[in-house]
């Protein structure tokens, strides 16, 4: 069997374009809570764009340039909006019990995204090369050392942490976001709890 053919057939079957980018959704998808996810994604895009500018000019630029400091401020506030909307999205999905109907893996991918985001933000704080980084690194080292990982994940090693922050962790986040969105699209939007249109629906039986 041709591997390329198999991969193409799988992709066409699993990710049909009309599901990936649907232009029609069920009428119950009608609430402000559905904006939290897309606002989180928009914040991520803002973080990536401002991060790219900061990376192009190097880690010391923003300390000595007014424009650099402004770009850093954009990056800083985008972190705040990213987490603000992500936490709202997370609680909204919790109170909608969005894991129902075979969507539990998507809940798990969302929690993993939250954890990787925390790690990414943490490495960002460590990469600032200012007093905040110095304090966070020296306070945080004891926690990582106590857990036995401080030698491998050395938060005082700027080269290691900066590399993780600007390359590996954003790539991991982007891949996880892609997987998360793929699951949303392939499983469809979760139906309302006690849905009058689905008489047998029940949160206890359809995980």
């Amino acid at each position, binding site marked *: 069997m041709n591997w390329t053919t198999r991969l193409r057939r799988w992709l066409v079957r699993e990710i049909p374009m009309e599901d990936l980018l649907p232009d029609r959704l069920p009428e119950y998808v009608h609430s402000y809570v559905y904006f939290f996810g897309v606002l989180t994604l928009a914040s991520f895009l803002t973080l990536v764009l401002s991060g790219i500018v900061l990376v192009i000019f190097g880690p010391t630029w923003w300390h000595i340039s007014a424009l650099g400091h402004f770009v850093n401020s954009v990056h800083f506030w985008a972190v705040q909006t990213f987490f603000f909307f992500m936490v709202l999205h997370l609680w909204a999905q919790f109170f909608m019990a969005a894991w129902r109907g075979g969507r539990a893996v998507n*809940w798990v991918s969302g929690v993993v995204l939250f954890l990787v985001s925390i790690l990414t933000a943490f490495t960002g704080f460590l990469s600032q090369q200012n007093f905040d980084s110095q304090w966070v690194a020296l306070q945080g080292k004891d926690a990582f050392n106590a857990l036995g990982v401080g030698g491998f994940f050395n938060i005082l090693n700027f080269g290691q942490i900066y590399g993780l922050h600007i390359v590996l962790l954003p790539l991991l986040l982007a891949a996880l976001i892609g997987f998360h969105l793929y699951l949303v699209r392939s499983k469809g939007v979760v139906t309302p709890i006690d849905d009058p249109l689905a008489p047998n629906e029940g949160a206890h039986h359809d995980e």
Partner: protein
Amino acid sequence: MSERSSRQYRGYRMVEADLVKELAVAFLVVLGLVLLLALLFSSPDEPTLTAQQVALTHPAELEATAIHILDGKNAIANYGPPYNHGTGSVQSLGPISPQAWAGVTVPLDAKSVFVLTPLRRVSALDPALGQALAAFQAASPAQQASWENAYQSALDHARVVGGRLLVPASASGPLPVMMQAYLDLARGGTLEASINLNGHVYQTDFTRALLLLQGAPLTRTAAGQELLGPEWGQMKEPGNYPGAVWLWFYTLLYQIPPFLTSPAPDLLAGATVSVVTLIFLLIPWIPGLRDIPRKVPLYRLIWRDHYARHKRK
């Protein structure tokens, strides 16, 4: 709509949606918001605390740091893994100690790295320092300890006059010469660079230089900014900026017993956060927890239009 979607949404009225336009609008809204916040509030950028600053403003504190590195009382000198075989900062819960199991992976001979080697590097410029270093290293450990104790006692009565640190005379052998040179090295601004020297031009790892001031000097500076652990420092930024508020649960643990009084607070907090995270991850499979949304009827608000339109018969 694909066949699969048709099956998923069977029985529901479908309405037009434009996800790409929604994302574009959301992006513009967020971009506008963060540009506004950046313009109005900027972002924090406090410069690092340097040995030069400490030497100029709190010279006795820097000398005490150096003396305690030599006598082994400094926290890093007696830290334990991953830096050395000390025991001062090794955390364990009963027989469980991942820190001890991981072993020494970032070896650091504190005496040599932080004090003796930086002094040796400049001793060629100062013959008196060279002789003092030679005398110190030729002395027995007991003799060294006696000099260190005498110097530390004298340092307790030191005064700063005209910008100079005056330490009363004591039976501390070569230490006054060594400590004055150490202070001068820091005042000149080259102490961290010397500690961090690795024999190569390129450097990206500042572990050693950062660890020098991790005790009293840094804690004093952070206390001035209300960034200490009991002040919820783990989730704060310098100044009035929002910090890592998403770490509220982790930070909370350090404010309450048994974490507050535990000899292994970080290990206990790490273990607790790991367990809570695992529970959070597995909510869809945990009876009771997964039923909370049904009992807290926020969903009635979220889908109120849908319920109003299709009242259950």
